[in-house]
């Protein structure tokens, strides 16, 4: 009986959190140098009339907030899946080399204009391709051998490949000041200047990934118990680790393509969820998704209003407002262990 009551409470809290996210997202669209009312925001979305106000809302504010929601939800979900699959609290989407690969691809495309000009696509495409290739390379290196992708091999492979690529990126940036100047905001994670086209290009991937993760949340809970227990329960750890990698690449790759390598959400949001709702991934996953989306939108709002700058990188504000909260949780809510 207690279990049922707890589930009901958690579900209720999740719905409240979801409602809060929607309200805050609407507020984030309304807030800015030209403040709008929530009614105006609603009109611009549902009864667009082509006026300047409506253009500002739909062309500038809305894509930015949507991008924030997508990125936050995707990264937090990917981080939770990584932590479930590896059983390592230090695991994050970045561990699969997603961030390093995306950054390397972007910087390579900028530093070698012949490649950049030949393909003509924006940073978005390079970032996604770089992230995807690196993610799968890490998985292949990590799952060599008869016993497949054990968590230890996977995290080591990830650390190896991402450090390698990061070093190459740094080497390029140290010698190429012009590229450094262009990409330094991107490398910190930023939502400024994202268009509706960018958001729409990424949204389907994130959508598929999120739906899959939420549908499979019970499987990820089993996976998080470790290979012995999950194998004993009839789950194939190898198959499910591979599925995890595919989903993480899909989600985090899209997020990195859209906003650059944002590190904090994917690593920390699953921990926040775990500290709040316990070790059950059936709850950690939905809470991570909603909480991650909320966190990124709030961080971007704070960045825009506090620093009065459209360019303040959201990756920085995220850590500045998220870290103290996380520290408090880690200090006072960490049970056992």
């Amino acid at each position, binding site marked *: 009986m207690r279990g049922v009551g707890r589930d009901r409470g958690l579900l209720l809290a999740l719905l409240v959190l979801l409602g809060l996210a929607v309200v805050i997202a609407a507020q984030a669209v309304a807030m800015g140098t030209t403040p709008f009312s929530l009614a105006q925001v609603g009109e611009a979305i549902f009864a667009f009339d082509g006026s300047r106000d409506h253009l500002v809302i739909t062309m500038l504010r809305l894509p930015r907030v949507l991008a924030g929601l997508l990125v936050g939800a995707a990264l937090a979900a990917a981080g939770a899946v990584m932590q479930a699959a590896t059983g390592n*609290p230090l695991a994050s989407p970045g561990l699969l080399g997603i961030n390093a690969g995306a950054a390397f691809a972007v910087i390579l495309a900028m530093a070698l204009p012949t490649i950049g000009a030949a393909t003509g696509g924006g940073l978005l495409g390079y970032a996604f391709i770089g992230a995807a290739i690196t993610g799968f390379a890490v998985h292949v290196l990590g799952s060599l051998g008869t016993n497949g992708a054990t968590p230890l091999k996977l995290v080591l492979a990830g650390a190896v490949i991402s450090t390698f690529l990061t070093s190459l990126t740094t*080497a390029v940036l140290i010698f190429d000041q012009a590229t450094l100047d262009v990409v330094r905001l991107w490398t910190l994670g930023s939502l400024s200047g994202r268009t509706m086209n960018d958001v729409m290009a990424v949204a389907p991937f994130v959508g598929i990934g999120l739906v899959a993760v939420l549908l499979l949340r019970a499987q990820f809970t089993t996976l998080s118990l470790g290979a012995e227990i999950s194998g004993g329960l009839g789950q194939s750890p190898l198959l499910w680790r591979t599925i995890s990698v595919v989903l993480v690449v899909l989600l985090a790759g899209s997020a990195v393509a859209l906003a650059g390598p944002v590190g904090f959400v994917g690593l920390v949001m699953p921990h926040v969820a775990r500290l709040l709702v316990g070790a059950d991934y059936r709850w950690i996953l939905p809470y991570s998704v909603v909480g991650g989306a909320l966190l990124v939108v709030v961080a971007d709002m704070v960045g825009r209003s506090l620093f009065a700058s459209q360019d303040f990188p959201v990756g920085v504000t995220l850590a500045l407002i998220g870290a103290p909260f996380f*520290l408090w949780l880690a200090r006072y809510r960490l049970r056992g262990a």
Partner: protein
Amino acid sequence: MMPRYRAISLAALLVPALLLASLMLGDRHVDLAALIKGEATAEVRTIVMDLRLPRALMALLAGMALGIAGTIAQAVMRNPLAEPGILGINAGAAFAGSIVIVGFTGLSVTVLPWAGFVGATTMAAAVFLLSWRKGTSSARIVLIGIGLGAFASAGTSVMIAFADIADVQRLMIWLAGSIYDANWDKICLLLAWLIVPITLVCLFYRQIDLIRFGDDVAASLGQRVNLVRAGMILLCTAISGATVTVAGLIGFVGLIAPHLARRMVGPGHARLLPASALVGGLLLMAADLVGRTIIAPVQLPAGIVTALIGAPFLAYLLWGRRHVPA
């Protein structure tokens, strides 16, 4: 057991070989035979004795220190991804360094190492104090380290995002970690600073063996877990803080050296500690040699090259042991 000792003796033989190579190779090729016979000019002697030898020794020392610090971190945190950076050491040093480079452009460069040291130790102390609630736990230290590290990195990121681009470039070179201003004074300083903590670590290697098994096991075998953990973290901070002071932020060695060493000598710390030191020293010495010769006269920071040569090597090891259950 044979391959085990073959690998480690090969590594031990590589040290003098690399040292000799470091003395000979560079912008100007040095004939060592002539130098030993005393036929070399004063200029050549200066190049070898005052520039190349201290630099190679410094790389060896700093690498050994990082290898040992990484081994301690992985044992105490019981996490294969742990490295001294987990204690916030790197993030703290980076933040302090970025303040000095970007905020006080007029300040002498000699302040930089000390700022790094202060940043590193302050961060480690903060991580430890925040994790202390009637004792510590590895899980809490890891999480607090992540949180505080993210906070400090955000500060560094602000500098990278908005500072003058030339300053940012200088900052990135420092952050990459390099040893090109090595001299005998610095080596003596580093030695003096390292000798006590490293001796202590080696004396208490059995305690490290124990704590690796987990708090409960270690405590039931009579270990005062909190005391040992606090002591080991203090030693780890002292060792890696010292390397930050002389060599900047050299990542990856502390992470990878223990893994390479473990594949050579197994998990017991009596062998693992010296093996990690050996591997770390080799790796950094090789990285510095490659970094200063490969695209001379331009020098690549050693911290970058460690990853560029260390990562493929670890990948090769992963491949070689792909069927071994782990």
